């Protein structure tokens, strides 16, 4: 098994290497940094971004907007999800809302938000709207998949309601919640950046990207993209860590 593991790692490594080679080849064929800069140029630009004055605040603001939207959607989704999961009428009522929210193009939300809200609020609102239906749907699904026999056991033994929610409902939906969060964060992160590109708040990754594009600084545009991807990876990793801690009771 260990050998297979290292073998797969090797394959991943080779694949990344090939991709970089392909990129190098393409940029060489284009022959212009204005259209497609070479990988090494892009890496150099990325590194130069890191020491730029506005780097920390641009990244910080974007992350802050994403996290604010995420926190709002998490609180509302868990609350509403538990309610809808336990009361069928509530589920029937919010189901069309969730379906509509999930299938509306992000760009529609952004265009409307630009009319309704101030520039600073647009990305937060977008992050909230993209993440909320995903998390909420997963919470509802988690509640519905709870083992009825376990609930019956808890009720027969007259376990207090508060403890049933804390010790039965919450851990029962935890796997659904973490998988919902990990999907939602992926969508939400991209939505925040699109929101920033279009609403142009003072500082933010999206704002920087839009400016780089305006001045045809393609290497900078790709460099910001690399940074956005790395941050997304970091959050993905964070969730995996939380997940393995939360769900250690499952057979590995």
């Amino acid at each position: 098994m260990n050998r297979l593991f290292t073998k797969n790692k090797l394959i991943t490594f080779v694949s990344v290497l090939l991709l970089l080679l392909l990129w190098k080849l393409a940029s060489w064929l284009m022959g212009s940094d204005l259209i497609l800069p070479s990988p090494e140029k892009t890496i150099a630009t990325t590194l130069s971004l890191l020491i730029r004055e506005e780097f920390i605040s641009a990244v910080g603001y974007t992350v802050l907007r994403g996290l604010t939207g995420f926190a709002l959607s998490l609180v509302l989704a868990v609350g509403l999800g538990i309610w809808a999961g336990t009361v069928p009428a509530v589920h029937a009522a919010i189901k069309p809302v969730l379906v509509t929210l999930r299938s509306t193009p992000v760009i529609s939300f952004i265009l409307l938000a630009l009319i309704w809200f101030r520039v600073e609020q647009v990305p937060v609102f977008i992050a909230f709207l993209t993440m909320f239906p995903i998390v909420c749907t997963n919470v509802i699904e988690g509640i519905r998949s709870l083992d009825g026999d376990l609930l019956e056991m808890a009720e027969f033994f007259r376990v207090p309601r508060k403890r049933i929610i804390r010790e039965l409902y919450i851990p029962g939906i935890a796997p659904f919640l973490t998988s919902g969060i990990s999907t939602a964060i992926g969508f939400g992160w991209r939505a925040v950046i699109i929101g920033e590109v279009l609403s142009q708040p003072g500082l933010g990754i999206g704002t920087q990207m839009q400016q780089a594009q305006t001045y045809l600084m393609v290497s900078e545009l790709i460099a910001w993209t690399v940074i956005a991807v790395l941050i997304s990876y970091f959050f993905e990793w964070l969730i995996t860590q939380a997940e393995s801690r939360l769900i250690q009771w499952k057979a590995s």
Partner: protein
Amino acid sequence: MESIMKLGVRNIRMSYPGQEIFREFSLEFRENTITCILGPSGCGKTTLLNILSGNLRPQSGERIGFGNRKLSYIFQEPRLLPWKTVTGNLLFPVKEQIPPEKQEAWLNHYLDLVNLQGKGHLYPYQLSGGMKQRVAMARAFAFPSDIILMDEAFRGLDLSLKMNLMESFLRIWKEHPRTVIAVTHDVDEALALGHDLIVFSHPPVSVVDRIGQRKQEETVFTGNTKIRNRLISRLMEAGRHPDR
């Protein structure tokens, strides 16, 4: 005898659409005794347990002596919370019942009784089926109940495991005796566990046989052929049904 009933049901009536389960049905249980109720499947044994536990209200009639007592349960499945350890599962129903400083010694005592000493930190997925059912048994006894209700608790287990679990059950019961009402359709299980054996008919339920005051030690695992044959023939009669 009817007039001084301490524990049981009196004149209960219960019917589902298209089927009458109980019609003016009365039954008394002896306290600190293991009563096994036998009967063909679908004869309302589980319905009776649900009425006794107060989770199902009969359409008329009353249950006597159950209202102010604490009940615990052993189900057919272990019904352990998969995200809690063995200790966490034992603690789940009793947290409010036992003072916190006593809990550890309390739980260890019951773990010893079901031969799970040192296994308190394991999660259910790390236990075998028999071990899980022993945890469920310990949970029912560790809960400071007056009465234990059992619904086919040993069903679907292979013979040696079943024997093993029943031995555990009797050992723990001798240490902490209380009223047990067990529902089963397994004659050998009833013979091994029960002091009082009751055979139910098809609905509307009547008691077709009652064997009381048995001393368990005489018959546990040695098998009393006479009683066994009597029970089987009663069950056969009870199982005979117009539409079969």
